[in-house]
């Protein structure tokens, strides 16, 4: 009798137990959405990271959505404001103010992402994600600039090793330029794309600083380049096309295409361009740090951050925060570097010797040490200011001083409109 009772007890216990386990599993099966723009390597990397994360966290599934860059900002804005869309979203750090202002994202919970941890573990430029005492997002990877140069053209021009100073840079560009009988450039010494691409960053964060200035006031509200340093920097940049004639805007469409075709000696770009050049047939290139000046070096860094959307609440927010923690782990960063070619956002991962001395990534990683991330209000009009200044000098023959005064006024309006 007693045995039967025991059996029944056991039976009931096992039933309730399994119901309990099962129901807790069901309750924990949270699905969160992750959004980014379509770029093959990035999509692959996120898929890999999701697979790893789901294995370690059986209760959470992550739905990965991506679409073309051109529609990205629009779709994110519309989806989140209508209550759909991602729980965790990738955004360019330069859009932070815009996203925050529009109520698309929420601050990271302090218990899961302690400020002292972030500040001691990540590179300094990540501090640009801190506004009003809160962190609003964290990157998996960061980017910096470096100099790509064509080994074969260097050899042909009798050059060895990369240019170390801004003066060398000009001399090298001159030696690497080739023209036909009527003076048309058939091989570009240095490709600049007239301010588009990475050139406006190079001007703002590298050249302006080398010539003793800074692009914006410390609080980011005022233009600070409309002075002698800015004029010198713009003169230096535009002289390549105007005076030294080593550069021709639009040569073979874009600098990156011309460099891939082996028709450019020097070219500045980010580490994400490496994969394109590695695939370019017959291209024999090296990478070095950007040239310095008066013993100093500067660099520009940027990154895509992962942020919690304002839609994520309750258990979805918790799950999204967990996934974010994984995305910013050392393991994820190494996977991202190997898959996408973007640099780890933590010195502990980036600055290991294998990465630092890496033939391709090394110069970028070493550049992170002295890099600044510009705080943009609205990247496009701010980029346009540099592009316009360049065109005014090169196409219209304006003096760099007048050109700079004019675009500084336009850009200041963009800043004022935001801060008013």
């Amino acid at each position, binding site marked *: 009798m007693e045995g039967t009772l025991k059996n029944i007890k056991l039976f009931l216990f096992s039933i309730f137990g399994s119901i309990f386990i099962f129901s807790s599993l069901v309750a924990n099966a949270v699905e969160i959405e992750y959004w980014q723009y379509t770029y093959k390597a990035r999509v692959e990397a996120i898929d890999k990271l999701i697979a790893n994360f789901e294995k370690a966290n059986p209760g959470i599934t992550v739905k990965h959505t991506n679409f073309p860059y051109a529609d990205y900002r*629009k779709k994110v*804005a*519309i989806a989140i*404001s209508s209550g759909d869309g991602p729980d965790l979203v990738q955004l360019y750090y330069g859009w932070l103010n*815009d996203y925050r*202002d*529009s*109520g*698309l994202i929420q601050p990271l919970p302090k218990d899961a992402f302690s400020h002292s941890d972030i500040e001691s573990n990540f590179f300094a430029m990540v501090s640009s994600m801190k506004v009003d005492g809160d962190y609003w997002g964290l990157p998996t990877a960061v980017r910096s600039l470096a100099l790509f140069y064509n080994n074969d053209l260097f050899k042909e021009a009798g050059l060895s090793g990369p240019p170390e100073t801004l003066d060398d840079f000009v001399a090298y560009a001159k030696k690497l330029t080739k023209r*036909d009988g*009527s003076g*048309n*450039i*058939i091989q570009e010494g240095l490709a600049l794309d*007239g301010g*588009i691409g990475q050139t406006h960053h190079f001007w703002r964060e590298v050249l302006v600083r080398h010539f003793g200035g800074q692009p914006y006031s410390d609080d980011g509200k005022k233009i600070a380049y409309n002075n002698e340093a800015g004029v010198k920097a713009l003169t230096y940049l535009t002289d390549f096309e105007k005076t030294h004639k080593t550069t*021709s*805007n*639009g*040569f*073979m*469409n874009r600098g990156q295409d011309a460099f891939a075709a082996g*028709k450019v000696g020097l070219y500045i770009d980010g580490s994400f361009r490496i994969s394109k050049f590695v695939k370019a047939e017959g291209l024999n290139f090296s990478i070095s740090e950007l040239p310095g000046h008066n013993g100093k070096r500067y660099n520009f860094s940027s990154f895509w951050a992962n942020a919690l959307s304002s839609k994520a609440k309750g258990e979805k927010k918790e799950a999204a925060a967990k996934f974010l923690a994984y995305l910013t782990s050392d393991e994820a960063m190494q996977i991202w570097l190997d898959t996408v070619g973007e640099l780890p956002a933590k010195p502990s991962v980036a600055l290991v010797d294998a990465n630092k001395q890496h033939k391709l990534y090394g110069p970028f990683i070493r550049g992170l040490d002295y890099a600044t991330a510009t705080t943009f209000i*609205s990247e*496009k*009009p701010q980029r*346009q200011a540099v*592009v*316009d200044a360049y*065109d*005014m000098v090169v*196409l*219209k023959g304006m003096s760099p001083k007048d050109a700079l005064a004019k675009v500084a006024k336009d850009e200041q309006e963009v800043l004022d409109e935001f801060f008013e």
Partner: protein
Amino acid sequence: MFNKFWSDLSINQKLAITAWIFLAVPIIFYVTIRFYPTYEAFYVSFMKWNLLGAKKYIGFKNYFKIFGDDDFWIVLWNTIKYAVIGVPISLLISFTVAYYLNEIKFGHQTIRAFYFIPFLTTAIAMAWVWRWFYQPMPIGYFNIILSWVGIPQQPFLQSVEQGLYAIMAPAVWAGLGFQIVIFIAGIRAIPKSHFEAAEIDGAGRVQILREIILPALKPTTIFLVVISTIGFLRIFDQVYSMSEDSAGGPLNSTKPLVLMIYDFAFDEYKLGRASALTVILFLLLLTVSLLQLWFMRKQR
């Protein structure tokens, strides 16, 4: 109940109801897809709005900002240039082609098809091909041809002076096919007896052209002027695809109104300012259309 209602109606009433049911589809479509957004654009043009969050009423501030912006006047002037230069050139070419094409019998259909194909091609694809034509030396066809005849390389799209015309060229080219077909139809609609009478009276080719064909084509020409003026005032695809970074550069020298609207709306998310610009463009197009009606009325 419905059966009784329906059987009580007269045939005319039934016909009217059936007609309205069918008409309701396009009417609803137009009201929801065309008129309502148009009304919204007027409304939003008095607001400050970034696509999210609440709209804030700011009166005429958007308009003041636009009129106080030097770039707006450059862009407006560009837009007018596209129309005022593009329309006469395209009409002149298309009329000339139509006039001679009408006279030949051999290969008429084939040649007409060749002229019409660009009209059917996607503007974006075509603009990109032209963009490559305009490239500097090692790859741009136009510059390669120039170098053969010893003319120095031209900057085309990279130039403040030439950019607008370089972008206008494919737009003119793409519109030719449509205009030619309309012109040929117009010429063919002229009664044969007019030509016969003129020949009997001993009129020459030039006289027939001036006294018969051109006057008879006046309504056709006015129609084409209006259609292509509106087309050029709304130019976008070509500029978006051909200018570097889709910025309408260099230095805004090729930027038309529609691209400025697009930039404000979808790059800077200033929906109020963009709407105010669409209202301005709307008024511009309305003026052109009213002028056409006025000309047509005088015609009769």
